[in-house]
């Protein structure tokens, strides 16, 4: 099966619809079949009933006497002194030729067609044969029937004759038999043994119902069902055709609708496809989009937003990094070219080499910083964790930067507690944090100022570097840990900073699970605080410290 959403949607939808339609059609068909059978049985039973009633009414005396005194005129039963219902009479075997046929007889002897159109049709809709006559009802008459022309029966419309019957006498001879299309079949039947109840027999094309009639007669009603079956089959066929057409229509409609539903998704895909590294400013149009798709488009747009931001940052970072690398390169190049312009003294050449060396050192520092950050970004920076004393880290950093502080005329204060402040950390990297913060403080503190590093373990291990420098304006505070961000463009550069110190501090602190923050106001100096996470050990240290103090 294809992975297309549209095809799958249609496939499922079509399958479910087909199953539903098959169930529904089968149910309707079965119900119609049952109806047909019940109707045939009901009609047969009613006819049987009517037949028995007619017989009882027409033959108060034993049928044998009736038969023995049976008149030659079939239209009346002389023994009874009463005319039999015409309906019961016509199906009798044809009277002997000497009898002058009545109009009615003539009608019935004409052939199958007229026979089928006569009497039994009533049991199909009108009053059944043998029922007591109703006033004005043309179907049932006593006495001589009216002339053919006045008879209403031929005027009736309805399904062809399907009800036929046989009445046997007690001795097995036939009292009456209809002369419908199944007459031959019926003639072959033997009188069954006596039945107290109606019995059913289903033949290939008919339903036969038996009943014990008055004076040990046996009545049989033969109901042809082949027409009903044909009708049922036609009905079944219609259900199948209509069902099939419905499915085809639904699937085609579904195809169209699914296409329309999928179109916005395609549109989103098209827009997303046009968004590339060079065209990250495009966004998916959410106006007019389906409610269900708006979150998807929103999520995609947010992703593009982040991507664009990251790209912008990357571009800025690359530009900044190349700028930072280019400056010392320019110095080296200019210095070397200048030296070569004309012959120089030894001192001048020494100066040239010194300048080049300084620039190379500056580049190395920058490249080291960039590499450190890149490794941090790529999650490749592995901490060599050891149980260390934060006081040692701070002390070493102070010693390292003492010369720089002296040169800048800044007083460096190392404020360490009596008790060790132990934590799990990478000593060289933590040392770099301390050194960067101190160096940063010295750079931004005017001659005569103070830079102080303070280690505490009141709640959590903490390292704080404060300076009495120029401070940082509020608008710069959120960005000071960004790479190459400078509060004053190029000021840091002249003082030897490369714009990555605080970014590296932030990254290294994060690797230790520590947070770094800065409090500052212009003219009031800055305070950088690195707070390490509270561990069981540091908790214990804090307790010990408190106990000692109290």
């Amino acid at each position, binding site marked *: 099966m294809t992975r297309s959403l549209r095809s799958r949607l249609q496939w499922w939808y079509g399958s479910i619809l087909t199953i539903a339609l098959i169930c529904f059609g089968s149910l309707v068909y079965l119900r119609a079949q049952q109806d047909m059978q019940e109707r045939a049985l009901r009609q047969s039973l009613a006819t049987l009933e009517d037949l028995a009633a007619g017989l009882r009414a027409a033959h108060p005396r034993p049928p044998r006497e009736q038969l023995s005194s049976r008149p030659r005129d079939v239209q009346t039963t002389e023994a009874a002194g009463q005319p039999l219902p015409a309906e019961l009479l016509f199906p009798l075997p044809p009277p002997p030729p000497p009898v002058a046929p009545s109009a009615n007889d003539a009608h019935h002897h004409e052939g199958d067609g007229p026979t089928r159109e006569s009497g039994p049709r009533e049991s199909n809709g009108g009053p059944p044969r043998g029922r007591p006559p109703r006033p004005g009802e043309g179907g049932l008459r006593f006495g001589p029937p009216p002339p053919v022309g006045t008879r209403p029966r031929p005027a009736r419309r309805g399904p062809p004759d399907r009800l036929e019957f046989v009445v046997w006498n007690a001795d097995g001879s036939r009292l009456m038999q209809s002369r419908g299309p199944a007459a031959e079949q019926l003639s072959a039947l033997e009188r069954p043994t006596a039945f107290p109840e109606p019995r059913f027999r289903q033949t290939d094309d008919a339903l036969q119902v038996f009943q014990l009639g008055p004076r040990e007669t046996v009545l049989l009603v033969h109901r042809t069902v082949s027409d009903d079956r044909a009708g049922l089959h036609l009905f079944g066929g219609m259900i199948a055709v209509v069902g099939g057409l419905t499915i085809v229509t639904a699937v085609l409609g579904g195809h169209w609708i699914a296409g329309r539903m999928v179109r916005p998704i395609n549109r989103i895909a098209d827009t997303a496809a046009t968004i590339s590294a060079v065209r990250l400013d495009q966004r998916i149009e959410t106006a007019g989009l389906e409610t269900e798709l708006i979150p998807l488009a929103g999520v995609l747009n947010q992703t593009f937003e982040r991507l664009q931001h990251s790209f912008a940052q990357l571009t800025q970072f690359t*530009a900044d990094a*190349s*700028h930072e690398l*280019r*400056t010392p*390169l*320019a*110095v*080296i*190049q*200019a*210095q070397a*070219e*200048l030296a070569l*312009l*004309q012959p120089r003294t030894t001192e001048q050449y020494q100066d040239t080499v010194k*300048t080049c060396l*300084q*620039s190379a050192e500056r580049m190395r520092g920058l490249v080291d910083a960039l590499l450190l950050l890149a490794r941090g970004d790529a999650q490749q920076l592995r901490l060599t964790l050891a149980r260390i004393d934060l006081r040692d880290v701070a002390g070493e950093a102070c010693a390292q930067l003492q010369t720089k502080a002296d040169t800048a005329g800044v007083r460096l204060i190392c404020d360490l507690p009596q008790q060790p402040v132990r934590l799990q950390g990478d000593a060289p990297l933590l040392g770099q944090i301390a050194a960067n913060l101190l160096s940063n403080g010295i750079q931004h503190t005017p001659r005569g100022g103070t830079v102080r590093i303070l280690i505490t373990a009141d709640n959590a291990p903490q390292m704080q570097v404060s300076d009495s420098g120029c401070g940082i304006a509020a608008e710069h505070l959120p960005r000071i840990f960004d790479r190459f961000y400078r509060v*004053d*463009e*190029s*000021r840091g*550069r*002249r003082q030897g900073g490369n714009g990555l110190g605080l970014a590296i501090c932030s990254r290294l602190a994060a690797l230790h699970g520590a947070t770094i923050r800065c409090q500052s106001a212009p003219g009031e100096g800055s305070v950088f605080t690195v707070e390490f996470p509270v561990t069981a050990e540091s908790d214990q240290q804090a307790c010990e410290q408190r106990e000692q103090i109290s």
Partner: protein
Amino acid sequence: MKILVVEDEPDLLRLLAQALRESGYAVDEAADGEEGLYKATVWEYDLVILDLLLPRLNGWDVLQRLRKVRRTPVLILTARDAVQDRVRGLDSGADDYLAKPYHLTELLARVRALIRRSAGQAASEIQIGPLLLDTRSRTVTLSGAAIQLTPREYSLLELLALNRGAIVTRTQIYEHLFEEQEESFSNLVDVHVSNLRRKLGGDFITTRRGQGYLLHD
């Protein structure tokens, strides 16, 4: 010829100034935008070499404010080499744009070209009668014979040659020949002029008492 270099990178500033001085230019230095703008506005330089990323006042602002008062040629020398930066720099009124790192020889050639063009001189050689000045090699020949001049004497001659036919005032000569830190005595110009006259011979340079000097066309 006097050039102002505005550059915040101390090493680069020092190197650039030294290279220009060795090429015979008088050089003034400025380490930030404000200082650079002040000097460029107050003094009449033959060229300003301007960095863009400057403390206090960035290069574009310096350029825009300078252009309101002076037409001094400006060469932008910066690490920003993106096309839009070059376009913005040139459109802000710069005469040339050079990205770092640069070749010193190329920078010096551009400096010469800019100074020459601002004086309305397209060729690098100036011919005045039998006198021929080659601004590229900074040499002077008189009727084919080379004349040895000190850098300062050559600069003076070039200044007069670029403004030939017009009076060059003593103030102009001071501004174009001497750096701000230099201790210049008021008679220093007269000494240089008399030396030039002695070396060139003839009466190329005329003195207009109370006004200045003139080099006849």
